[in-house]
Structures are given as C-alpha cells and as structure tokens.
C-alpha cells in the first residue's frame, strides 16, 4: 500500500485556496468553457426575429437615438467629427464595459443550480460570460471598423494604422475592469440581491460620467476631478484617439487605469474563488 503523499492526486479540504484551482486544471476544462459560450450565444438568439443580428442592431439603434438627442436636439460638440461615427465609437466601448460588468455580476446566481449539482472550476462560468461578451464586442467592433472605413475613404478622415492598434490595450483594460468588478458583484449579490438593482442604476449613471458621447475637453474645470478619478475616462479618450486622432489624456491617467484594472481583476478572481465554495451552502 503506497503510504506516501504522492499517491493522492487530489484532496478536499475545508477551505479553498485563493486561486481556487491550478491553471492546469482550469485549462483542462477549456472544452466546457467554449461549450458554455456557444450555448449562451445560441440560446440567447433562439426564437427571435432577427437572431444574432441583434448584436449589431442594438448599437446602431442606440447611436441613432443619440444622434437625434445629443446632436440634433441638444447639440453637444463632437469636435468636428461626424456625430454618427463619434457616438458609435463611444457606445461600442461602453457596451463592452457595461455588458461585461452586468452579465458577470449575474454569474454566480445564474449558475448556482448547476454549481449545486456538479463540480467544475467555478471560474469557468464567469470566464464563459467574459468570452461571450468579447465575442459580441468583436462583432460590434467589425461594424465599427466598417463604418470607420467608410468615413476614411469617402469623408477623407485621417487614417493611421499604428494609431488604430491602440484599441487593443484599451479593450483589455476596459473588459478587465468590467470583469473584475462583475466578479466581486456576483458574490455580493448572492447575499444581498437588491444590490443588482443598485448596480443597474449605478451603471446607467456611470455612463454620464464617462466621456461616451462628449469629450473630456468639454468638461468644466470645476467637475473635472470626477472625470479624473474615473479610470474609464482615459480609456474612452484613448479609444477615440485610436480611430480619430483626437483625445485628451495623459500617461498618469493611463497608468492609473492599468493599475486599477490589475487590482480589480485579482481581487475579483480571489474573492470569487474564496466565496463561491462557501456560498454554495446558502443559495
């Protein structure tokens, strides 16, 4: 009888480690991860009129509303950029953030019944939500690139390929902040379900604090601090800069956003791992 501890391949203890599972184990569940993404993508457009086209209709409809409200009626400056493109850029990035945050914050409650019946690394569930949102964002980004290409070619907007690549780190930081915060909220909302309502309200308000349909340059000096403490502000300016070559940001703001993202992401993953095992007893 092998008595050495090397004989045992796994051990179930009373507490979970902060990291939850090893990367090797997480990786071994990659098929499940992609399957869940596929399942959610297929099922969310099942028995709908327009199906997956909603992914692009939704931002288009929003942009049209914004053009009417903010451009035609209120007439907020778009820095000489065609309003349609200007708003589409902001909304595409905003959708990535708000959907990632909101969907991830449902991750635990949504999967609680499965968590209670079968084991797999719990992180797989929020990761699949993140991937699904990145997938939808990818489609919306394609739409944005098409629209931008139209303006580059026919409206003689200045095009710079290297500059355009800035959107890659912007996407990572924005999605990272949304995901990290979503993980934390997914745990809090198990205990206090009303937080979900507050969160939705908070996200709606946050949109007005983010330079989604205006530029930081337009913000009065008196309330600029509000924009500066918001780590997302610089990301919206950067994202616009990538497409249009216009935006106000500095290095400090970008570093601040990066550190903020890393902190939230680790905090989110740790909290989710540590608490999901305790919460499974109470849901």
């Amino acid at each position: 009888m092998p008595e050495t501890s090397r004989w045992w391949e796994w051990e179930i203890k009373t507490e979970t480690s902060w990291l939850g599972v090893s990367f090797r184990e997480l990786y071994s569940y990659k098929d499940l991860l992609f399957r869940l993404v596929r399942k959610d993508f297929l099922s969310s457009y099942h028995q709908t009129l327009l199906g997956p086209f909603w992914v692009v209709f939704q931002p288009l409809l929003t942009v049209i509303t914004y053009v009417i409200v903010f451009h035609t009626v209120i007439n907020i400056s778009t820095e000489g950029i065609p309003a349609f493109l200007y708003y589409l850029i902001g909304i595409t990035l905003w959708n990535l953030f708000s959907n990632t945050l909101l969907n991830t914050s449902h991750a635990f409650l949504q999967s609680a019944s499965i968590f209670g019946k079968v084991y797999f690394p719990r992180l797989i569930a929020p990761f699949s939500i993140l991937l699904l949102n990145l997938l939808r964002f990818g489609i919306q980004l394609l739409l944005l690139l098409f629209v931008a290409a139209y303006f580059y070619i026919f409206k003689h907007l200045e095009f710079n390929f290297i500059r355009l690549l800035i959107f890659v780190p912007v996407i990572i930081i924005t999605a990272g902040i949304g995901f990290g915060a979503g993980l934390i909220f997914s745990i809090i909302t198990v205990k206090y379900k009303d937080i979900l309502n507050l969160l939705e309200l908070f996200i709606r308000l946050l949109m007005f604090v983010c330079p989604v349909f205006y530029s930081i340059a337009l913000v009065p000096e008196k309330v600029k601090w509000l924009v500066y403490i918001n780590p997302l502000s610089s990301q919206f300016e950067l994202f616009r800069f990538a497409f249009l070559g216009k935006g106000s940001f500095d290095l400090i703001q970008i570093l601040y956003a990066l550190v903020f993202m890393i902190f939230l992401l680790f905090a989110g993953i740790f909290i989710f791992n540590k608490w999901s095992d305790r919460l499974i007893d109470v849901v």
Partner: protein
Amino acid sequence: MSNIVIQAENISKLYRLGTIGTGSLRRDIQNWWLTRVLKKEDPYFKSDTHDKNYLWALKNVNFEIREGEAWGIIGRNGAGKSTFLKILSRIVKPTKGSVRGRGKISSLLEIGTGFHEDLTGRENIFISGNILGMNKREILKKFEEIVDFSGIEAFLDTPVKRYSSGMYVRLAFAVAAHMEPDILIVDEVLAVGDAEFQRKCLGKMKDDSTKTGRTVIFVSHNLQAITNLCSQALWLEKGQVNATGEVRSVVNKYLGSDMKASWKQEFTNIKQAPGNDLIRVLLFELVIGDSSPMAHIDIRTPLTVKYKFWNFTDNITLAVGIHLFTLDGDCIFDVSHTPAFYQKGILEGECQIPGWFLNDGSYYFSIIFVKDSSEVLYYYEEGLHFEVEDFRENMNWYGKWMGTVRPHFPVTLRQVESKNLEIK
C-alpha cells in the same frame, strides 16, 4: 487487495438552518468585527449541537474505498447521504476533516444537469457531456453510442423542450452513462424513467464496475438495487456511520433496526396512559405474524396488531376499529368487529393482516374506540409506525412498484394462437 482510492478522515458538515447568511448587512459587519478583528467567538456560529439553528448533516465520518469496489450508501431521509455525495463530488466543502483520493471523479446527482431547453438534443449531448467532465474528443468518440443508447435518433435536431419527459430522461442518462471516470458517484437518479430503461442503466453501471474495474458509489432508497449492484455498503444514521462492510450484512442490520421501538407501545401506569375518563390504552403493538426469522417487514410479512385497554364504563356496547394509513395520510382500510356488550375492566383483541397485502412504503396504525356504533369515545392516532420493504424475485426491474396494495392475485397470460402477423 487493491489500492485505496478514496480516504476520508473525520469529515463533518455543519449547516445553518433558516435564513441565508446572517440576514442583514449590519449583523454581518458586527459579526466580522467580532470574529476577525477582535478575535472573539462568532456569536452566530456556535459549535453547540444543541443549538436548533444548526444541523450537523455529517459528523466525523471516516471511510476508505478501494479501487473497483461498488459502494451503496443507505440511510433514512436526512441521514446525510446527499451531503456525503456532495462533499465527495467537490460540490460543497466539509466543515471539518478532509478527503484524499486518486483518479478522476464524475458525479451524477441529477438527471440532465446543464441541459438547455431551447437547444437541440445534439447540442445538449455536448453541453451535458462537457459539464459532466468529458472533453469534446471523448464525446465525439462516444456520440454514436450515446444516441443509440438513448434511442432518440429521430429527434436529435429537435429542441429538447419538445421531448416527452421519458425521452428527456433517456437522453440525459445516456450521456451520463458514457462517462469514463475512475470513480463514479450516482445519487438516486434511477427513480425516473421507464422500467426498461432503468434496467438498461443499472445493467450498464454494473458492467462498468465489474468489467472495467470502475469504483462506484451509489445512493438509493431501493435496497434491492443496492444489494444487486454493490459489493459494500455504508449505513448513515443522523450524519454518522452506523455500519460499513459487506452489502448484505449492512442492509440486514439496517432493516433490522427499522423502528422496532415504535412497534410496541405499552402503558403500565394507568394515570399516564393515553386516553380519557372512559378509555385508556394499555398496549398497542405490532407483531410479525409468523415464525419467520426476518427481523424486518417486507411485503411478504403477515402482521398482527395487538391491543389492550382499560374500559371504565359498565354495560357498554363497544367496538374497536383499526385504521391503517399511508404516511401521506390516505386511509387504506378501516376494520372493526361486531359491536358487543362489555363490562368495566381490561379488554384485549387483535387484528391480523396477511402477507402479500401491502406494497412497500411507510404506514401507521390508529385505533378508535366507539360506543353504540356512533359515539367516538377515544381515537388514538398515529400509534404504530412501520415501514414495509420491497421484495422481488426473478425480476430485473427496480423501479417503484405502483399502488398501495400489492396482492398476489392470480394473473395469467396464454397464447391463443400463433401465426405471423403483419400490420399494414
């Protein structure tokens, strides 16, 4: 002797009853301040077993399971069987203790976990397979077999919400049955599905454990299925291990213990006996009717109900009625004798119930005392509780037998003529 693949040391699980969490943010913060900052005892988490808000679902459970063994977990409702499986399946964490093991575990605690109603059978085979721990390659390899096993080939591209419940269960189980873990954990999932399919599933599980040397841990209320499938058994009672060992001996011990205490109610003190100024019960007893060596009641067992009581009235026209109820409260029978004339003193009687009458299940007797065929003098309710176990011979089916009674009426089947038939 083969190797140990699972070893549990002192696993215990404490559940908090009632509301989720401590109920409010204020109490949570207060609690956190006391325990984490001031390092005091958690006021909401006492390890006091007498506290009615906490329940030890499992307490100090130790066991070892060797490679290739098939274990049956038995015990009454609430004995901790499901908690036990959930800890082994890594779904919940034990409050104390640890489990060490070797090899891949797959658990089947529910039929169709992760199924999505709107998606097709084909999609759901992959979803369910992935969730149960198979990877895409394994599912692809087994796909034909799974479809064959479930017999739903024609509906593979139909959303599962349009399936009949039988088809749904068959598909769900077919996926699960084709997992190839080293250790398979199965909760009571065979209660669903039709008889033929149950037989097929049990057959497959048995094959797996005997031929491929898979370790199986199986929970069921169906002791027939347990004895048939398992080699070892573990009997849990109120969260603790009552007996482990060879399946037959454990099952017999379990059956023997079956609430014997409640089979006899005797009240020798006339003042404390249940009743009133007219009637007081002295004895209410269930006796196994024949000389069979069985210490438990199964569907074959004849039963005798004996009763003895004090009658405080002279010259009374009295009748005693015996009522038998199922645990759900349905009355199965109400029997009595011809009312007759009695005097003050102690009276006794009995009622005999033949074997092959009741189906398996939980029942209780009540006794009623009636004067002049109309006036109820006393009704002693839910006096004797007992359980009837199932018994089957020459039968390959382990599902719940329908009906409240299980009589042995002669049923025949004859061939009237034999010829080739064709339906056009």
